[in-house]
């Protein structure tokens, strides 16, 4: 018996897809993904209309989606992150229905609860057998963890696995079990390896970034959290990674045995695991080759589902046990609200991803960012979009000072005593404005192009169109 179907077209027919339904994708192939475009082209050719696309993220490579939107094939979009190329067009007001932005934890929660039920899930799998046991750990298009895809497999009405590496039954080291899969389709290439994972992610060479990372490490040191059992998550961006490097040196020097590293896993976290800084890595997504190799070789490097990572409705999730998270921001206001959805002109170029989830759960949430980016201050009076509410953000670290949320007086006192450059966030804004001058306010349009759906299900902000 075999679930292999001759073509994508056939699989779509067999799935019973109808106009108006909701289809889903995961984003583990990132900017090297060919599957979303392949599937959408086929769906468009078959004449389908008015579908809702629910993809954990959408990258620049998915710009063909815009044509499908223009042709009414797609009338609804639900994502946790949207790259700038697609984002710019959405910001112009192309879609009638606003895009629903969720977080990495909110997406599985709403699928599981039936708020956004998936009719057909398309799961790009770097390796699969003929019954649909599949994984991201092996194959020419290996991507490592398939964390975001589990909810699709387990809760969609019909599940189609698309692979470019078919192996004999059974694939013993499967991530997604055959019990969830309806059809398997083999194609030549599911994606471009160089776009799927980086060869190696590098820490920043930018001296300002290194300065920020050094301060951030000192804050962690002074927080009282850096002791045996310590847990940590950091972003994949240059300065965030530098924190991992400094932390590793510190933990090895002081012989601190951490419990887990979480993320978004890069080679740096793998180094920390291998040097004994952590007992385990909980991996919802691999960013580079080293992470992909490690997850397939090291039993201490565990693949976890997005639900396990961050669902607000799971009985418990990893983010709730996280000590420290390092995050970025395009803007932060004097109430510590953070914008990661739009740039300073209001164009969509991001999304929460795990931002609001980790900020909510972590004991210490740190935003690290340069005080100014090309004449624009990162600290503003009011962010253009509230992605993560200020009450969940504890510290802002810039190269010119550290601002602590007034809600965290205990932490502020500790940092001041340690002679760190603590400064009121309003003063930090003042320093930035002295350097850049005071910018004119951006006037956005009146059309809602995006809903920012927070972990608790409420819409904490809307994104307006750019005129």
């Amino acid at each position, binding site marked *: 018996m075999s679930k292999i179907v001759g073509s994508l077209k056939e699989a779509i027919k067999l799935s019973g897809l109808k106009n108006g339904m909701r289809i889903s994708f995961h984003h583990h192939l990132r900017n090297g993904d060919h599957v979303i475009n392949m599937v959408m082209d086929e769906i468009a050719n078959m004449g389908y209309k008015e579908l809702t696309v629910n993809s954990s993220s959408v990258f620049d490579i998915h710009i063909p989606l815009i044509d499908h939107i223009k042709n009414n094939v797609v009338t609804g979009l639900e994502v946790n992150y949207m790259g700038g190329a697609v984002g710019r067009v959405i910001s112009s007001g192309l879609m009638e229905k606003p895009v629903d932005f969720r977080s990495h934890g909110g997406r599985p929660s709403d699928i599981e609860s039936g708020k956004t039920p998936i009719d057909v899930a398309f799961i790009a799998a770097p390796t699969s057998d003929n019954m649909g046991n599949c994984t991201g750990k092996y194959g020419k298009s290996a991507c490592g963890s398939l964390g975001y895809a589990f909810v699709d497999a387990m809760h969609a009405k019909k599940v189609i696995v698309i692979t470019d590496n078919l192996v004999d039954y059974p694939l013993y080291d499967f991530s997604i079990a055959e019990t969830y899969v309806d059809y398997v389709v083999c194609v030549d290439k599911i994606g471009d390896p160089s776009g799927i994972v980086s060869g190696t992610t590098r820490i920043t060479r930018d001296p300002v970034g290194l300065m920020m990372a050094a301060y951030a490490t000192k804050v962690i040191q002074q927080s009282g959290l850096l002791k045996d059992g310590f847990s940590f998550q950091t972003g994949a961006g240059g300065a965030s990674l530098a924190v991992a490097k400094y932390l590793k040196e510190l933990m090895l020097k002081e012989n601190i045995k951490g419990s887990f590293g979480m993320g978004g896993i890069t080679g740096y976290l793998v180094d920390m695991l291998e040097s004994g800084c952590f007992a385990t890595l909980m991996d919802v997504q691999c960013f580079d080759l080293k992470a992909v190799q490690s997850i397939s070789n090291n039993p201490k490097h565990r693949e976890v589902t997005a639900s396990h990572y961050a669902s607000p409705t799971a009985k418990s999730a990893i983010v709730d046990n996280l000590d420290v998270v390092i995050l970025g921001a395009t803007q932060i206001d004097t109430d510590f609200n953070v914008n990661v959805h739009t740039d*300073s*002109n209001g164009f969509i170029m991001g999304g929460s991803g795990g931002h609001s989830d980790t900020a909510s759960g972590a004991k210490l949430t740190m935003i690290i960012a340069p005080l100014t*980016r*090309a*004449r*624009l201050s990162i600290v503003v009076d009011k962010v253009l979009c509230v992605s993560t509410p200020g009450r969940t953000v504890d510290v802002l670290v810039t190269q010119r000072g550290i601002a602590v949320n007034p809600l965290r007086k205990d932490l502020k006192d500790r940092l001041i005593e340690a002679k760190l450059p603590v400064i009121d966030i309003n003063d930090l804004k003042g320093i930035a404005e002295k*350097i*850049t*001058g005071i*910018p*004119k306010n*951006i006037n956005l349009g009146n059309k809602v192009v995006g809903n920012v759906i927070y972990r608790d299900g409420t819409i904490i902000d809307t994104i307006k169109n750019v005129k």
Partner: protein
Amino acid sequence: MKIKKVATAGTLESSDIFVQVEPNENGIELELHSIVYNQFSEEIEKTVREVLNDFDVKNIKIILNDRGAVECAIRARVETALIRAGGVEN
């Protein structure tokens, strides 16, 4: 100051501004491109015109390609371009 020839100053690197000046007959012609146009176009133009005024330039074509330079850098680059174009020894 009289603009005697075409001259440039600055670079297209982040936080810098590339300035090109040319001789002109019809007063001050200013063309501004900036990555922070929405936020600072008025400020940038004001700064540039101030420098032109300081150097008593009445006729010039000036094209600016701004990558988020702060005021003191804009002033420096415009001043440098003017001096290079005016043939004044610096």
